[in-house]
């Protein structure tokens, strides 16, 4: 209590410079105060501030490892100005490259190149959004699907094979290849889902194992001539036919493809599924409280399996869209780190469809910008991982962000009437506020 009170007291001091005579003015002022406070508590402000902090952390890392800055630090007390100017330059270069690589490049040679970064961000975002949605569905239903990686691999594999091994008419070919991706991911997710439903096998373990199995399975496939159909020994499959590719949207020079529409459509679909459909109701119910769901007639094993099947299907679609829209050729590293990035995307998006969409855009942008930052300033792209993780950590802990920026807090936890608190204490607090979580504690069978 004391902590929050102190902050509540402290805030007006700073926002009201002079004693204000007259009631109206005072009222206006206090309104402003409350508005400011509400603003500070709204989640997007937290998001922005988290990004700021993350950039700060990244800046420290870049500086700490920059040879030039280290040199100036060597004689810091002799001429501190050098240190600051060098630091400023290094950071400015790095982050302006990050921005130019992700949004708009004002240094580019042609106007076309100037706007290309934004389209690159979208290209990167497509698989992140799709796979993020797949993971988010799991979170909302109380399941921790670590298996995005494997599901993406299977999706990409099926889509690729359909894409190059068959000759089909234009629209149909693409549709079938996408469907193949969906099916591949659904099967891979379904293995974990069915095992969990039938035997209670912990989905965390099974999906982790399936990731590795998928990796070796793909490696094996890529050595089989009947599969790759290239006539070479290289572990890379033939390129998919044009008729199966996701068509580009902006012509040559741009990689942006129709996958972005799939991502948008999938976001809307997932929203409808979770919020408006009976199946989504069941899925959310088992996520929030499987006991109550069972009592309400939900077939929990069936819903459990379906969650992982649908989540897998979305991840598979992510793999298919990535392959058919961007890569065209299947190779062992097709999934990159998409499966794991998707988990952070879903977490950052708080497992909501729109949130996941936006988080996918953000991470896609960081990725796109990271490439230019590395190319131009030599800053290792690994810094993007640090930025991503710091952002997600901070967004998950708004009080920390508020503390960093000395913002007034919401009234801290135990300030609700007793009955409300008790309800919160049981399950609500962790489930209601944090849908992502449920998988944890609930999952592995409190069998009664």
């Amino acid at each position, binding site marked *: 209590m004391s902590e929050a009170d102190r902050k509540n007291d402290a805030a007006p001091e700073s926002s009201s410079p002079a004693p204000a005579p007259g009631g109206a003015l005072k009222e206006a002022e206090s309104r402003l105060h409350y508005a400011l406070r509400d603003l500070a508590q709204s989640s997007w402000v937290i998001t922005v501030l988290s990004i700021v902090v993350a950039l700060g952390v990244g800046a420290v890392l870049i500086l*700490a490892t920059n040879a030039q800055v280290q040199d100036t630090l060597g004689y810091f007390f*002799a001429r501190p100005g050098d240190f600051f100017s060098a630091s400023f330059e290094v950071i400015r270069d790095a982050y302006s490259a990050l921005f130019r690589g992700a949004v708009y490049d004002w240094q580019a040679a042609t106007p076309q190149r100037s706007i290309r970064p934004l389209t690159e961000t979208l290209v990167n975002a497509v698989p992140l959004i799709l796979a993020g949605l797949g993971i988010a569905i799991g979170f909302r239903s109380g399941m921790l699907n670590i298996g995005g990686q494997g599901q993406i691999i299977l999706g990409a594999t099926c889509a690729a094979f359909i894409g190059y091994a068959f000759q089909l008419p234009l629209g149909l070919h693409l549709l079938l290849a996408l469907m193949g991706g969906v099916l591949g991911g659904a099967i891979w997710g379904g293995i974990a889902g069915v095992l969990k439903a039938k035997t209670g096998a912990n989905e965390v373990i099974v999906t982790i194992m399936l990731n590795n199995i998928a990796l070796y399975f793909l490696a094996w496939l890529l050595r089989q001539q009947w599969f790759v159909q290239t006539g070479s020994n290289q572990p890379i499959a033939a390129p998919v036919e044009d008729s199966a590719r996701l068509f580009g949207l902006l012509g040559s020079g741009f990689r942006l493809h129709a996958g972005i529409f799939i991502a948008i459509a999938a976001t809307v679909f997932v929203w409808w599924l979770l919020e408006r459909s009976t199946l989504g109701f069941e899925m959310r119910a088992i996520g929030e409280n499987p006991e109550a769901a069972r009592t309400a007639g939900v077939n929990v094993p069936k819903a459990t399996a379906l969650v992982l099947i649908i989540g897998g299907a979305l991840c598979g679609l992510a793999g298919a869209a990535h392959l058919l829209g961007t890569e*065209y050729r299947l190779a062992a590293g097709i999934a990159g780190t998409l499966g794991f990035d998707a988990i952070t995307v879903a977490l950052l998006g708080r497992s909501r469809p729109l949130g996941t969409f936006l988080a996918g855009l953000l991470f896609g942008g960081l990725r796109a910008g990271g490439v230019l930052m590395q190319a*131009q*300033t*030599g800053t290792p792209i690994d810094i993007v991982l640090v930025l991503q993780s710091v952002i997600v950590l901070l967004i998950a802990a708004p009080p920390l962000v508020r503390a960093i920026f000395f913002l007034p807090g919401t009234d801290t936890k135990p300030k609700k009437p007793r009955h409300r608190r008790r309800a919160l204490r049981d399950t609500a607090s962790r489930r209601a506020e944090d849908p992502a979580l449920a998988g944890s504690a609930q999952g592995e069978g409190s069998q009664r």
Partner: protein
Amino acid sequence: MRPFNPKTLFSLAAVGVLALSACGEAPEEEPENENTETAENGEAAEAPEDVDFTACLVSDAGGWDDQSFNESAYNGLQNAIEDFDIDSNTAESSSEADFGPNVDAMVQQGCDLTFGVGFMLEDAVDEAALANEDLSFGLIDSTFPSDPENGKALVFNTAEAAYLAGYVAAATSETGVVATFGGIQIPSVTVFMDGFADGVDRYNTDNGAEVQLLGWDKESQNGSFSGDFEDQNAGRTLTEQFLAQDADIVMPVAGPVGLGAAAAIEDHGDALLIWVDTDGYESTDYGDIILTSVMKQIPQAVYDTIEEAVAGEFSSEPYIGDLENEGVGLAPFHDYEDEVDGEVKEKIDELIEEIISGETVVESENAPQ
């Protein structure tokens, strides 16, 4: 700056040791910033230089420190930078999705010559070459699918050198068992293993010996692989399996995972290692157990290509490293110079002759076409 951030503290703690004494003296006068690649921006390219040329390098997912071809190519570039005073740019790819963007970023950085390292970059570099006819491109360990005018492939027939290594290994082995294993079963790995297997066979045929090769069956293209290029522990235990089968010479073709093999051999004490790609005597610190290395002169090839390009003599003629042009070869025996029979050394020279003359052809379905 932001005093409460835990991660700041954490990272500060981690790098704190770096902040050496901050009380040093300022340099007398600071000239223009040196051209470290980190502080480069677009304008610097306009600064007057002896040579206005930028050479660039994009790695595959292994990164510059893979103790394999990425690192080799990187070293070649560094040598060229020193000797020709040119600008450079490099980009490490962390996954396949990075290849295209990275190559594109190089083009945007105004790279006159951009190398892609590894067959995985084949498509990305090929595409960039077609789109930017005024720029030059190089591709290491693979060929251009569409043979563009401005693209030069740098490939190596490592099977030839591995053949020699196989012969030496078979001749040197005391137990009559030698072994090899790979990281992942891909041609750039198995081509070594094919050559090695043939070399062992050659020794057996010539001398009526029965030296056994573990870990690779050229016929069925089946063998031992650690599964990736990262897990050195797996390399170590796998090597111990070979040692337990009495193998006394092991050739890992697995980048850093080979270091696990080296650790196992060092521990065992009674076996030797054959390194690949670079001269392991120089590039690793396991020199004392390295019999020899199967070298792939990527640095030289990269260097030469840059030299040609700087001189305006870039050609799309593929470079094929083989024994003849010394693009591949067997490294010196260093510490084991005395332990390898003179007879064997002579035989090796003979084999080199045979191969160069075409009398002996080292065949491998995994060799570059």
